[in-house]
């Protein structure tokens, strides 16, 4: 024992003497020209990297280090903010060591414990994409859906705190002119750094700080790596479905009981994107026969300029299998192709030119059956049931060329639009109808063939300039356009009873010429802005129609008329902005002239009205709160749908003439209020709104039944309608488990009247809806998305005994689970339940879908399995207070689609 102690003491002493051995390292740290630099020198043990001493250099660049270490070799590092680090390994003995260093600045990796997910600066909210992006999210739309306060609807439209956005920019440039679905569904989430929400957005620079708006815009800020490079992404895929036969050609039209879709399934896309400082381009092709509605991406959610509205009048339509409310993916048998090219060139700092071309080609087949139970007056009802197969061919081309100068001192824009649609519907169906009640009667079965050719062409040009003259602003806007639709609906009805076969043919050639010019001048006096303007608007409708095959007694089956309106409006608009308040009052005076030249009745008439349509609104904004109250009154006199005296076939079951010896007059009064709250720091967004509207018409449309055919005529009788609405929506984001919660509810009540078979029936409808949803990530590899909605609708018509109030209850629940198995593999499964209480069979329709995504270094693979429970048919019932509609749609059976996605460039 004693020996051991002695030995230990000896070892310690030796160690101490060793460790006390002092090494002195001195020298200089000098820059390129031998000048002293701001630096320090540190010494670490070579093996462990542990620092044992450090010293600063003096003004001459000299340093001296005294160390006590027993290691063999040392690492000596000269370091400094402006020189980075320079290391030398030396033996552990006293020596001189000089460093000659180069100037180099330190670059560090960006790191953060937590980044604030939403940052606010003034009217701009910045959402960090990285904070909301999850593993399975590919494009920016996937991430937008997770951001609190932002809502992406099924058609791709974006709302921020309940308000639809009015502009969408990528790097502050509006390349897509409202077709922002192209951006949100194709720009990779990982290429976007932040999503900016711009509140009170004024896109016209000359009006910034002068004319305040309530508009919201979104700007995507890209990461530097995504700017200035051409990216081409492609996707190819194929699959099979459980039944539906094989082949590529069109399906024969059948009896409405066939499966949707046909093997093999295919899908393809190619997207090229280029975003640079002065030029942006986005060109893409997408096509599939899997039911995916790619045309949604071409939806124009806003128009960058107020072009003249062109609507050549045509009330005719084919009767089609009704939509069931399910997504088109389940009900469409399609062959879709979209091709679009969008280009923007920044010519100078404030000047840009743009070209947007979109082409959409599709062939859509739908099958289904519908049953309707119409109240026909006198307590009798008309039951019709129809099974149908439709095929719609679509060829749409839309071209828009644009020039834009947007500078702090002025604004000029010119937009030329060209739009052509070459569409047709072909429907085959089997109709059976019978009348029940006091005089029951069976009308038998009829085979119905409808063909509707509906081409349409429109051209328009719009010019707008805004100039600031001192503190005041002049706004001049001119827009003119022409549109035409030569349409034909041909219907053959082969009755199974002999001798009653009929054929109808409705030709409609409709033209619309419209032009408007308006100019505004803003005077500003302190908090007041006085806006005066003159607007001239001309709208010329030429309507030629010819109906064959209908028996109408004395009434004509032809129309040949020009219905023109000319408006001269003196606009006056007063605004007051101070502190938290923004008040506005408008009261335009409209001298409204209409001429009707009916060449069949040889009747020429002209009418002049003075319309006064005031509107008032008040806004209050305080910190995170906003409140808004508004009210308006408007009046319309006459419309092309109310001036024709010859019958027009709406569809083969409904014929209408709408002329009474006076023009229709409609008065509308509306008022609304809303309160909004948004806090970026707590990620809380709330909005509460209510509205009321009252409508008064001087004529009523009455329906009467002749056999199974309804005849609609305008009647000289006043009618009134009221509607009340209340709504709430809100969302809140939590840092806890990365969760987001959303909720909404709404209530509506409306009253109106219906005229059926010469009797007036008052009508009341009440509807309520509520829903909630959210996402939660309880474990890093597990994410749930739940949404749930309920709605109740009670409609009632007084005065008919066998029509007690019926409640329609519907609900939908959807649960999606994302499992991040590894960093590369994501599995997702979703289940949804669609419930409707009036449906006799299959009240709960369950759908299930699953996907597996595998992300490899250069390719993304995806395998989808849709309609796992193999639902083949979907039925929903609606009740309108008088009539019951039952729609059954054939569905696409269980199918599997595999896709591969890769970057070409």
């Amino acid at each position: 024992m004693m020996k051991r102690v002695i030995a230990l003491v000896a070892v310690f002493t030796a160690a101490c003497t060793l460790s006390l051995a002092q090494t002195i390292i001195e020298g200089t740290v000098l820059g390129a020209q031998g000048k002293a630099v701001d630096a320090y020198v540190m010494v670490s043990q070579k093996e462990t990297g542990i620092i044992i001493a450090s010293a600063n250099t003096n003004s001459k660049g000299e340093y001296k280090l005294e160390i006590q270490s027993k290691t063999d070799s040392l690492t000596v590092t000269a370091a400094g903010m402006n020189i980075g680090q320079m290391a030398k390994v030396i033996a552990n003995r006293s020596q001189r060591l000089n460093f000659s260093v180069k100037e180099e600045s330190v670059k560090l990796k960006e790191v953060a414990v937590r980044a604030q997910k939403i940052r606010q600066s003034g009217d701009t909210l910045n959402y960090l994409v990285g904070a909301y992006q999850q593993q399975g999210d590919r494009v920016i739309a996937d991430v937008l859906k997770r951001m609190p306060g932002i809502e992406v609807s099924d058609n791709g439209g974006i709302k921020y705190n309940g308000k639809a956005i009015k502009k969408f920019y990528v790097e502050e440039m509006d390349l897509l002119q409202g077709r922002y679905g192209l951006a949100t569904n194709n720009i990779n989430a990982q290429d976007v750094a932040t999503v900016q929400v711009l509140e009170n957005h004024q896109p016209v620079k000359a009006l910034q700080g002068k004319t305040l708006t309530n508009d919201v815009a979104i700007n995507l800020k890209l990461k530097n790596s995504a700017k200035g490079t051409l990216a081409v992404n492609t996707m190819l895929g194929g699959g099979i479905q459980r039944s539906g036969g094989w082949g590529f050609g069109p399906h024969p039209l059948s009896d409405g009981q066939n499966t949707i879709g046909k093997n093999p399934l295919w899908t393809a896309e190619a997207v090229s994107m280029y975003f640079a400082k002065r030029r942006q381009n986005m060109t893409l092709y997408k096509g599939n026969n899997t039911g995916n509605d790619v045309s949604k991406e071409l939806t124009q959610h806003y128009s960058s300029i107020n072009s003249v509205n062109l609507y050549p009048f045509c009330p005719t339509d084919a009767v089609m299998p009704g939509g069931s409310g399910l997504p088109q993916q389940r009900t469409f048998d399609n062959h879709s192709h979209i091709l679009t090219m969008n280009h923007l060139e920044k010519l100078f700092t404030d000047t840009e030119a743009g070209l947007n071309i979109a082409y959409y080609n599709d062939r859509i087949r739908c099958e289904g059956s519908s049953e309707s139970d119409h109240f026909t007056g006198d307590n009798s009802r008309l039951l019709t049931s129809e099974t149908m197969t439709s095929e719609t061919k679509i060829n749409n081309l839309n071209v828009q060329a644009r020039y834009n100068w947007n500078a702090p001192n002025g604004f000029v824009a010119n937009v030329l639009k060209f739009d052509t649609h070459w569409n047709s519907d072909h429907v085959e169906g089997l109709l059976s109808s019978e009348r029940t009640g006091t005089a029951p009667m069976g009308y038998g079965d009829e085979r119905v063939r409808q063909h509707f050719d509906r081409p349409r062409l429109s051209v328009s040009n719009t010019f707008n300039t805004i100039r600031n003259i001192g503190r005041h602003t002049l706004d001049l806007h001119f827009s003119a356009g022409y549109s035409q639709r030569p349409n034909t609906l041909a219907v053959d009805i082969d009755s199974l009873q002999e001798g009653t076969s009929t054929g109808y043919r409705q030709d409609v050639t409709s033209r619309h010429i419209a032009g408007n010019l308006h100019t505004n001048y803003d005077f500003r006096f302190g908090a007041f802005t006085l806006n005066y303007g003159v607007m001239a608007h001309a709208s010329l409708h030429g309507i030629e129609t010819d109906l064959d095959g209908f028996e109408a007694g004395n009434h004509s089956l032809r129309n040949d008329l020009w219905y023109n309106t000319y408006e001269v409006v003196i606009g006056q608009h007063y605004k007051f902005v101070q502190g938290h308040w923004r008040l506005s009052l408008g009261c335009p005076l409209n001298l409204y002239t209409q001429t009707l030249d009916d060449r069949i009745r040889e009747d020429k008439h002209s009418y002049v009205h003075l319309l006064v349509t005031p509107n008032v609104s008040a806004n209050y904004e305080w910190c995170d709160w906003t409140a808004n109250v508004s009210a308006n009154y408007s009046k319309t006199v006459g419309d092309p749908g109310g001036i024709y005296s010859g019958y027009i076939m709406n569809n083969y079951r409904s014929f209408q003439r709408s002329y009474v010896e006076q023009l229709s007059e409609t008065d509308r009064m509306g008022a609304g209020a809303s309160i909004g709250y948004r806090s970026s720091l707590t990620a809380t967004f709330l909005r509460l709104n209510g509205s009321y509207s009252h409508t008064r018409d001087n004529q009523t449309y009455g329906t009467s039944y002749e056999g199974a055919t309804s005849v609609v005529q305008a009647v000289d009788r006043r009618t009134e309608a009221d509607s009340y609405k209340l709504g709430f929506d809100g969302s809140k984001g939590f840092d806890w488990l990365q969760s987001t919660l959303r909720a909404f509810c709404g209530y509506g009540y409306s009253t109106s009247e219906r005229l059926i078979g010469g009797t007036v029936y008052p009508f009341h409808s009440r509807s309520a809806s509520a829903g909630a949803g959210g996402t939660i990530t309880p474990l890093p590899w597990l994410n749930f998305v739940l949404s749930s909605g309920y709605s109740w609708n009670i409609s009632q018509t007084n005065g008919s005994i066998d029509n007690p109030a019926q409640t329609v209850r519907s609900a939908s629940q959807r649960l999606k689970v994302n499992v991040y198995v590894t960093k590369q593999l994501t599995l997702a499964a979703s289940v949804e339940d669609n419930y409707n209480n009036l449906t006799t069979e299959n009240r709960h329709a369950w759908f299930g879908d699953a996907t597996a995504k595998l992300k490899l270094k250069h390719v993304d693979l995806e395998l989808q399995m849709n309609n796992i429970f193999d639902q083949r048919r979907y039925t929903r019932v609606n009740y309108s207070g008088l009539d019951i509609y039952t729609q059954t749609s054939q569905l696409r059976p269980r199918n599997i689609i595999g896709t591969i996605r890769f970057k070409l460039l």
Partner: protein
Amino acid sequence: MKRTFPLASLCPQAMTVSADIVKRQLKQKPFIVCFIMNLACCAVWAQPKNAHCPIPIHRKAGKMTVVDTTRIRIWYAFNADDIKDENTYIDQQRLDIGKHVTKYYSDFYFRSDSLKAAWLKAHPGASSVPNFLGNGGKNYGTWSEYECSDLFISNGRLTEYATMPRYLDKYNSWYTEPYPLQQWKIEPERQTILGHQCQKASCHWRGRDFVAWFAPDIPVQAGPWKFGGLPGLILKLQDTDGVYRFEAVQISSRPFPISKYDFKNYRSSTREKVWKLQKTFNENWFKAADYHKASMDAAGNMVVGEAVSIYTPYNPIELE
């Protein structure tokens, strides 16, 4: 000048009321006395921010000028309960390291100032400004020298521009002292902070013992508050009693402007004088600001009431 306020506008009034209740209870029950003594002991172990001084309405400083651009910006959580949630910090602070100038200041306070400026722009007619905008952390709206002082370091000297609490802005002052201030002892322990391998160092400074964790791979001899001089950036620092804690939560090497107010209205002073002032204000702002209760007389006029004095023990980071 006597300062008065209607009763309701002053939250510390509630404190005086509860103090009265305490006195009454003291007479009644001995065990409550013990309990309260315990509580009082806890209060003596004062937290860095327990004073009742309100923040100044404006920094009595002129326009900002840009003095440098950051090479590195570091965000520190000051006394965080949960490092991932900035609402649990007393403050979030920034260290801006430029080519010539290094600045240390409150991120929350700076953001509030910018938001106030934006708010004023949006509400030009407003007669008053919100006290604090944006996230203020725990106990926001009250003053502490760690949030209201800007530190500038250049050419081997540290300058503190000390902004004083509300109604005491005439004491706003600045002083300089040589930098770095601490004599460090480097120790072998290591830990990883924000992905950087850090090494331990300790020092005794102005009456307290501190432990710092510095990152040798970041060649910057600076750190939170007045700490620096180690061969690498300090990413974490705390005193051995755990009263003061700083931890880096974010690092960026993007260029940000380093701005400086025109502090020409601040008077030149010494560290000792400024330290004394800050300690006095922290301990009894009411007395320092000559604060009086307001009350209503029979005619409904506001009259000056009794002087308020509330003493709060204070435990500053620099004990000497």
